[in-house]
């Protein structure tokens, strides 16, 4: 390796090692992950934006929100978990037509539906599923998962209605749950079929 390159690699490696050990020691309270000079042209070929700092800022914020929600759930503080995820779905999002943003938000709505229905708030849970389905319109695991969560919400609703002695409504909720699970299975089959169609067929012998 040339000596000049050794120097560059050595300096960079030292920076990386020190950064790793001092990851949160520096104080920069004014900085915000979403503020950037946005130097890169957001344009790629075609209409899709390129992966840039704005997208990463949103993904970092989403990741932090879900980790905070995990900690709240571990402390059995469901309300705090719901609050931090509500901020994510209701908060500002980049003005980018990036599929990653839609899919992360759809997954967040699914998690909120799970948390809210576990807390007995079935109306809000259903609304979260509906919002998520608007964001995940293509047949993907994200869409299938939302239908599964809808089934779960209806199962929980049926149990609550049974406990209240509302047998007819509980029956209807169970039927909705079954429909949702079947829809989730259909979507899963579509996902597999699409994945297989992208695999090139083996060459004939």
């Amino acid at each position, binding site marked *: 390796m040339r000596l000049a390159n*050794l*120097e560059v690699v*050595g300096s960079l490696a030292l920076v990386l090692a020190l950064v790793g050990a001092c990851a949160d020691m520096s104080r920069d309270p004014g900085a915000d992950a979403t503020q950037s000079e946005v130097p*890169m042209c957001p344009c*790629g070929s075609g209409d899709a*934006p390129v992966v840039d700092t704005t997208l990463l800022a949103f993904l970092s914020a989403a990741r932090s929100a879900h980790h905070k929600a995990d900690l709240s759930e571990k402390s059995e503080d469901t309300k705090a978990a719901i609050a931090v995820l509500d901020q994510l779905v209701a908060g500002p999002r980049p003005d980018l037509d990036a599929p990653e943003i839609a899919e992360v938000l759809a997954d967040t709505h*699914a998690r909120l539906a799970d948390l809210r229905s576990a807390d007995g708030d079935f109306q809000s849970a259903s609304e979260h599923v509906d919002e998520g389905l608007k964001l995940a319109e293509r047949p993907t695991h994200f869409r299938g998962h939302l239908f599964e969560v809808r089934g779960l919400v209806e199962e929980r609703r049926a149990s609550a209605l049974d406990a209240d002695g509302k047998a007819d409504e509980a029956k209807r909720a169970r039927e909705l749950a079954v429909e949702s699970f079947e829809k989730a299975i259909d979507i899963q089959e579509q996902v597999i079929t699409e994945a297989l169609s992208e695999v090139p067929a083996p060459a004939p012998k």
Partner: protein
Amino acid sequence: MSDDRKLKLVPRPKDGEADEPPPTPEERAEAEALRDALERDDEPISGALRALYRPKELETPEVDALLDRALEPSAAEVDEDDAAGIEGPMPADDEELEAARELREDLAQLEGPRGPRPAPVSTELGELAEMLRAAHDPAGIDELRNEALIAKALGRRATGGHGARRRGALGSIVGGVVAAAAVAAGLFAVQFSAQDEAPVQVGASAASLIQARSTTELFDAAEPFPRTGGTTARIDKIARSRAADLRQNRYVAWGVRE
């Protein structure tokens, strides 16, 4: 990027420009001595990096001895107390009680959930406790911030290229040998992320930049998501993948040749 492609971060010298002179016998001897010191585990910088990455546990008697030494009064303080007829520790005054309360609050902050930013401590000892916690158990670095640090390091190296080459080769040899230990520590300690603080030249063709796209490719088509749980792990995976794409887009935009 494949392993056998090398990134040329420093441009080649132009025609007619003198390349690096070969190391002198003295420089070779220094490098040899450094290599021997590394093998004997006798080199301070690499030793410090190794201790940072894998610190040894202190034995309980050593911890007790350190605490006793820190807490025991000095000879001057003993003389003062004797002169004043004071036996045993004095009760804390209001200022000391207030300082203890502030430190207690700071330590309570550090026990709470860790966020992407340092805990809002207000005392010097609280700051020290936070630094010790970060040294022992560093939190993951925010992706954007890590990208900014890398951008700064590469940006400074690019502008100092000519001056760097004119420095003695000894610094290069030493830097290269220490880099071996630093890379091992850095690879395990750092989570890459991106925060833009350095200007980037927009010189790449649009077609060569990685575009935003669906994340379905990251997940096994045959494995549906679990009915409950797993959201955080999925989003972690998505963020890591796109952080790698952002790095690649930056290299392309900076014109880093492979």
